[in-house]
């Protein structure tokens, strides 16, 4: 019996290591590729660790200094290398848009969800089910009309347009999660606070929000990831550095047949840093948020 247990333990650990490799290796290899020279990456069999290690690819993106390896081999690919230089601006756009969407979600989402959780009013049920069902609509089905609306508003190629669209897509989820969260909190504290002279808003700010912090963290993380990751609507409405986001930029670079592969790898590495840090810091909230929201859907 004991030997059998040990064997199963070994198998489990082996499976776990395999899983870890399947998840991590693609990431590690892209990091390695981003540190290779353009000739190094084509070596067969491949050199798993960059040899020689070069940070010229990153240097090019941030300073515009063309990696020597290109010039030496006559491999200069001006069209795409040019685009790679815009990545820092794209990152800035993406982070600004995603942060704005988070702020809007926490502000308007919290107020609306609190109202849904604590008030009774005419049309409440209809409003709530409208918010819920709006999540089921495939983005592709509304892509063109959305483009038309944005054009009508004169917001084509603006960060504001994407903030509005992403807020409309994330708020239903935020309200759904937070309404459930607020409902699960006991009313007693709020009522006690109001007896002590707090206004309703003060009660929300000082009593309810601290208690709901894990829920707020979860919806904040979700709205950030959604906005940072979104591609279709960013592709349709953006056209210049004024509003292009990272996914649009790296997609454009990667489908360009002239693209330097090491620079594509740099683009990927730069694009995944923010979401990875966020996912690690907010892991617990993301997990519990996913489970409680989808679990009760």
């Amino acid at each position, binding site marked *: 019996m004991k030997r059998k247990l040990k064997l199963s333990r070994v198998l489990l650990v082996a499976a776990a290591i395999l899983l870890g490799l399947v998840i991590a290796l693609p990431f590690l290899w892209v990091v390695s590729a981003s540190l290779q020279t353009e000739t190094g990456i084509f070596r067969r069999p491949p050199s798993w660790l960059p040899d020689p290690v070069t940070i010229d690819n990153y240097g090019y993106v941030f300073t515009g200094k063309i990696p020597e390896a290109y010039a030496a081999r006559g491999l200069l690919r001006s069209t795409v290398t040019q685009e790679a230089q815009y990545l820092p601006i794209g990152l800035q756009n993406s982070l600004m848009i995603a942060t704005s969407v988070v702020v809007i979600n926490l502000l308007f989402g919290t107020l609306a969800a609190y109202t849904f959780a604590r008030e009774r009013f005419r049309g409440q049920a209809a409003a709530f089910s409208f918010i819920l069902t709006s999540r089921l609509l495939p983005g592709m*089905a509304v892509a063109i009309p959305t483009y038309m609306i944005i054009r009508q508003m004169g917001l084509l190629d603006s960060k504001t347009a994407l903030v509005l669209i992403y807020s409309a897509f994330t708020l239903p989820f935020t309200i759904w999660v937070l309404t459930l969260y607020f409902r699960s909190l006991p009313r007693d504290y709020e009522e006690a606070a109001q007896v002590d002279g707090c206004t309703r808003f003060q009660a929300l700010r000082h009593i309810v929000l601290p208690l709901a912090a894990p829920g707020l963290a979860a919806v904040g993380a979700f709205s950030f990831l959604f906005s940072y990751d979104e591609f279709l609507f960013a592709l349709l409405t953006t056209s210049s550095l004024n509003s292009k986001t990272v996914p649009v930029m790296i997609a454009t670079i990667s489908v360009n047949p002239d693209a330097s592969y090491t620079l594509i790898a740099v683009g990927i590495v730069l694009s995944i840093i923010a979401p990875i840090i966020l996912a690690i810091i907010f892991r617990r909230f993301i997990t519990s948020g996913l489970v409680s929201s989808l679990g009760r859907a």
Partner: protein
Amino acid sequence: MQAEIGLRPNLVRRWASGVPAHPWLTVAPVLALVALFTLFPFIYAAVTSTRQVILTLPDQTPFVGLKNYLDVLQDMSARQAAVNAVVFSVVAVTAVTLLGLSVALLLNQPIRGFGILRALVLLPWAIPLVSAGIIWRLLLHGDFGAFNGLLLQLGIVHSYIPWLSSRQLALGAVIVAHVWREFPLPAILFLAGLQVIPPDVVDAATVDGAGAWQRFRYVILPLLKAPMLIVLVYETMIAVTVFDLVYVLTGGGPGSATTLFSWYAYAATFHFLNLGQGAALSFVMAAVLLLFIAIYLRVLRVGRDDT
């Protein structure tokens, strides 16, 4: 309660006591924004789908009834795209669900160090889908891809295989990338489901002489019905509407090997600028989606009655 609405003195008193004067004040702005970008476009698209709207002919948008829909049914390439989408969805949803369940069972084991794995598992799902797609575009590349390098070094292949530009292999390659990206969510949901199963239930089955498989099949699996339903519905939605991945991996090619229905709708709209057709295709997609969800709900409800 409802009668209070509209009574002025009452409203003022409520406002003074700190109660929002009208609940709609907080709800209306959000509803308006959501409606502007969902309800309005939805109606607009519904109208568009009954008209001939081709961007290259901007002044002629005659009403054509259900013609766009009938075209979809008769169009051979739309049919091919539908077949591809069905193959993709069936394989992808099955693989994602099974892998997610296996990973959850693994992570549920009380072994030290698995905490790191639980953190790691989120990563493929957290990064932009576009980034995940490009990672796999590089990994599977026919000239230098690491996957080819690995197979070569292990002696499994003798020359590099152009996974993404082979008619036979491309769809499979897209599925692999999709599964890598999507399995974390089911894994987390199943893991949460496993963690709320009381240990006594499983212990009791062990005492009664149930083996590992029997415990899984007759005790654990029935208790996972709720997460199973969510995973199937959610992953079907994701698989049917997959777009970003095709965009960066294959662009629907080679030929039409990876032209899934969602990609076809995109191409009709944005490559061929046939907006009416594109809207009809999107609506067909949405309808199929709802049908799938209804079927799952029914199947799992029937299953629950049996046990």
